[in-house]
């Protein structure tokens, strides 16, 4: 147990700061502090150039093994990077799904050929990935997969038919990993395959989903005879479920500290408004603001306590449940701090961003496993209660 930074960590933090100061400027100044990937007017092309800039600075693949081009840094330094990056105004990371979810899974379950083919593009910020799990009519029930994949005996390709939904950033991605049913009569978790599929092909079409925020970060993805090479299954065909679950388990650890640094910036906005508009003199709002700040500190402590312990089945669901409800509460608090002045006149950017916080936070307790699913998981897996 150690809450103080080592000298190495302090040095590393200074390094991050210096690099960010030197590079998050010029054309990239427009990205500064752009926490929400889905914010109106978001410039994805610029965000990709920024990812490439990060790669040049060797800020991608920090935790990857050196054999795969990573830096294999200790957890403490990874934490330092993710926190300091956001503190320096670093924008939301478009490469997140590839770097944080797919890459560790490729490293654990991919073939050497797959690793050599895909990891360099992820590392360099030149190749972007989307996630094809949820299907219409089966949002939280991931095992209810109806998308079908079959090997075409003529070409040797996989041919995919079906539909995925809630696919973030498919419209800006190059590839998608798709959980599909490869054994026609199989049910539930059996007979699935996880395929790596190029998005830019005529067998794939997208329909953006308009969200209550007004933005369209999510998509429906339609596969109509879409194809990918016969070798591009991740893990063995029929065993796709285990690989898919491994991938979901990567959604914790150091990168969540970066997310929390974003939350801190959002909280600071709310505190600023409260100081400015007099809400800071309301004893009830003062309590809620203090609770929000303390709760965020707890999210951080929790991540620091469990990040090093990969065996703790409780950790991922607890963290997801805790942060999503924390942020949803922050959204409600933001609106109450705005009070009667919660509607913005023209050019009131702060008010608008708090509205976006409020609306977008309603999704936090729904996507990536609803509150209800997380509670089921905790009860059954962590507490051993009956299914």
């Amino acid at each position: 147990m150690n809450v103080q930074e080592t000298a190495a960590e302090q040095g590393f933090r200074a390094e991050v700061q210096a690099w960010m100061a030197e590079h998050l400027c010029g054309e990239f100044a427009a990205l500064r502090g752009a926490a929400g990937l889905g914010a109106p007017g978001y410039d994805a092309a610029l965000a990709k150039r920024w990812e490439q800039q990060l790669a040049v600075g060797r800020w991608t693949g920090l935790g990857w093994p050196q054999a795969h081009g990573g830096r294999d840094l200790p957890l403490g330094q990874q934490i330092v990077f993710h926190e300091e990056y956001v503190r320096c105004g670093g924008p939301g990371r478009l490469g997140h799904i590839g770097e944080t979810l797919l890459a560790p899974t490729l490293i654990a379950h991919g073939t050497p050929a797959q690793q050599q083919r895909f990891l360099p593009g992820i590392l360099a910020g030149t190749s972007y990935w989307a996630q094809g799990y949820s299907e219409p009519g089966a949002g939280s029930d991931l095992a209810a997969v109806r998308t079908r994949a079959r090997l075409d005996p003529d070409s040797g390709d996989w041919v995919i038919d079906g539909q995925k939904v809630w696919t973030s950033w498919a419209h800006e991605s190059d590839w998608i990993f798709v959980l599909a049913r490869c054994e026609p009569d199989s049910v539930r978790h059996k007979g699935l395959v996880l395929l790596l599929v190029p998005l830019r092909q005529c067998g794939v079409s997208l329909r953006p989903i308009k969200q209550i925020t007004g933005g369209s970060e999510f998509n429906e993805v339609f596969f109509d005879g879409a194809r990918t090479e016969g070798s591009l299954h991740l893990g063995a065909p029929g065993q796709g479920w285990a690989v898919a679950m491994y991938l979901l388990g990567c959604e914790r650890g150091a990168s969540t500290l970066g997310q929390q640094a974003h939350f801190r910036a959002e909280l600071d906005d709310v505190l600023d408004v409260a100081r400015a508009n007099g809400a800071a003199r309301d004893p009830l709002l003062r309590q809620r603001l203090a609770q929000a700040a303390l709760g965020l500190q707890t999210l951080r402590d929790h991540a620091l306590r469990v990040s090093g312990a990969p065996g703790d089945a409780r950790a991922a669901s607890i963290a997801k449940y805790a942060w999503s409800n924390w942020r949803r509460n922050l959204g409600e608090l933001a609106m109450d701090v705005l009070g009667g002045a919660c509607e913005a006149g023209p050019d009131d950017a702060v008010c608008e961003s708090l509205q976006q916080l409020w609306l977008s936070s309603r999704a936090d307790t729904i996507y990536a496993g609803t509150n209800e699913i997380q509670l089921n998981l905790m009860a059954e897996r962590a507490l051993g209660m009956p299914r």
Partner: protein
Amino acid sequence: MDLALSDEQQLIVDSAVAFLASSSTLAKVRVASETGDGCDRALWQEVAAMGWCGVHLPEDAGGLGLGLVELALLQEQLGRHLACIPFFDSVALAASLLRSLPGSAQTAALLGSLASGEQMLAVAMAQPDADLQWAACASANANANAIPSASASASARAIANGAGWLLSGYWPAVGSAHLADVLLLPAHTALGECLLFAMPADAQGLSLQPLQAVDATRRSANVRATDVQLPATACLARGPALDQAWQRARCLGAIALAAEQVGVAQACLDLTLAYTAQRVQFGKSIAGFQAVKHRCAQMLVALEQARSAVYGAAAVADTEPAAAVLLLHAAQARMEATQAALYCSREAIQLHGGMGFTWEFDPHLFLRRAQLASQRLGPVSWWCEQVAVQLLDEKPLAEAHP
């Protein structure tokens, strides 16, 4: 003593339900709110033709001669349908204020055109001042003036001149101001007295700044007046009479707003029951999961308790109660209905899962209304603090029930 609906009241509800089911569908609401100014003028015409705009006004003022209970029943159904008309601002709030003022030819004329639906009105009734509230709390003094008087709303100045009054000022976030034909605006004289003015929307020197619509079905605008010349008759009231009327209108408006919130909560429960019944996950309708059932049941409790509170408050308001009694019941209705509307709209989104987060599905329309309504006329914490003053700081109030 009972709070069950009379046969006549049930008839009003039934006819409102039937009428709005066809005249204010959510499809129509989306047309009115996503294009245009958020007002369905055809609906307003129909509503006016049925006499709803004067439901709680005396017959000699052009109204139907019914009471706040009947107004609340209509408001409940209008809220349930998110009807895109300024009924709350014009009928519930402005008419309640005008009625509470000492009678005059001007107020009678305004009430007449309001009751017929010919004119829409808006009132610049700002949020109560939070600092004032908590100062009272900290000093723990009974604060007889804890309810902000009209003056707290007015950062505006009125100067008497030969032609009448010269008015300048700024009134933020005035509900339905962009639709109103006449705006009711408080302002101070140089001596600090507060006056209420009726200002035509087309007055020279008046300008509106529409606000970004969090709830596009219920919009507001900032109002600015720069040296607007008004005739002497534009001043409707002043002094203690205005203060009393203002406080009374805030309470009556709060009860009507609460009724609307009950309608919002009901709509959210209805949407959720319909969606969860047909949505299948893990091989069964999600309505069969105990977590979903318990949440819906809790929505029902919040909703039905709120409905009881609103009907009770409206019934008390119709007995011409003392100001302190009216305040207590208005606070009760606001507390229960705000809680119900927020809880039900939030759960509606959650229980719709991913669909609840799409623009296409309806729960977010109600979430927006619920959030905005939670702050109109003061947040629940403000109302509760007023009640706490009565409960804890003052001599015991003569009980509401003998």
